[in-house]
């Protein structure tokens, strides 16, 4: 998320990583959705649950472009290698001075965790990252806009956002929503050794029931794009 609050966080993590030689590269994730009509209720509840309940939640407006890096000339073979690597570039539309974020997320790990566990790497980059990726051979796969609220509770990042299509004749203000719902995501970065934070995540998720059913859903099971 290209936000003011994440930049110092990234700086700190880089420093701590250099110091401790530990990079939190695992992400626990829980996703759910809430209909637009009930959004206010969910935001109020989250405000109460998360830190800084006295200030209105921070909004973000991001434009994410996803590149796919794979060998496009090779014949399609089954298996994960042929699917390529998905690289996500996010920029903050409302804060153009912030650096872009390059993100790699891996596949969800197997195992009986309370939340979805996957490899995740976040890197702030300069604005010419797209050219760079294209020089590497990555192709633009898809892009979208995400607009919503971000809150945090301790180490847990809570985002509630709506995804918009970016297409022909689209300006920043003329966006077409994908669904009539907002996406609710709870995520926390951790290392392979510290798995206890998933219980906190699950506890927070349970607080949002029955408004939002947060669960770990593997997107690969939802069919090919």
């Amino acid at each position, binding site marked *: 998320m290209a936000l003011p609050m994440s930049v110092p966080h990234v700086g700190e993590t880089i420093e701590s990583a250099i110091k401790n030689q530990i990079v939190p590269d695992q992400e626990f994730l829980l996703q*759910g959705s809430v209909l637009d009509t009930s959004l206010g209720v969910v935001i109020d509840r989250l405000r109460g649950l998360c830190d800084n309940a006295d200030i209105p939640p921070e909004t973000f407006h991001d434009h994410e472009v996803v590149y796919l890096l794979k060998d496009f000339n090779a014949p399609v073979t089954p298996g994960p290698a042929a699917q390529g690597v998905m690289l996500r570039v996010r920029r903050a539309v409302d804060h153009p001075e912030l650096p872009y974020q390059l993100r790699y997320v891996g596949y969800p790990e197997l195992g009986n965790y309370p939340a979805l566990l996957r490899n995740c790497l976040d890197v702030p980059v300069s604005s010419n990252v*797209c050219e760079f990726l294209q020089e590497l051979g990555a192709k633009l796969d*898809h892009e979208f806009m995400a607009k919503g609220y971000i809150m945090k509770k301790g180490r847990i990042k809570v985002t509630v956002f709506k995804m918009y299509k*970016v297409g022909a004749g689209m300006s920043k203000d003329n966006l077409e929503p994908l*669904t*009539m719902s907002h*996406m609710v995501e709870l995520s926390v970065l951790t290392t392979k050794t510290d798995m206890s934070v998933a219980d906190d995540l699950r506890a927070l998720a349970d607080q949002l029931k029955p*408004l939002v059913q947060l669960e770990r859903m593997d997107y690969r099971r939802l069919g090919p794009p």
Partner: protein
Amino acid sequence: MQREERAMDAALDAILQRVVDIKGSLQELVVKVEREGEQADWPSYLNSFSVISAQIYTLMKLLKNEKTPILRNYLTLPLQLNADPDEKLLVATEGRVPSFSHDFVPNMLRTKPEPDVEQRHLALEAKMAQVNADTAQKQINVHNKVVKHVMDLVNTAREEWETETASRTNQPQTCSINETQALIAALGTGKGFKIRTQPPGPSPTMTQQPPPQINTANKAVSAVKTNIKAATAIHPYSR
């Protein structure tokens, strides 16, 4: 049904208590009158009267209480009509009522209806005698059909209302599983967003150019698949 029975029992107990109180105070009054005769104390009489009136008032209040079932809707039937003295009744009423018979309770045991009710009953019977048996049967059938129809209407209406209130008291739907899946698929794989098959000519988003031009670049990129003319027309920076 059980609730109604319990409510009925509770109401009857309460009414019985009140009636017993009234009876006690009436008895006191009678004794007082008999004992003291004409030299009786008028204020004490007034006291007794006020006690009795208060008790009658509470009895009335009890009968009008909303928790009391509507006693008018209930029928009491005598199970046994016997002119012989009933010992249990004697004991219960302290020797005053030997048998529950017409002498004691003429109004309760009467079977003849009121005059105007009786008149209407006779008129109906006369009308009934005139009508032919077949037409009567047909009318009965039609009547039954109409009543059944009305009952069906009422039942369906009731079911609709009940399900409506039940679903309204249930939590209104705040999240949809389908939408969740659609969103997760979109976030994970890009499902739902236009997938560009052709590589974009100019670099799509990230140049050193200010944002408005980035947007026009986006427009060009995204429109490539559908409207090539428009793309080349819009984008001034191509090649």
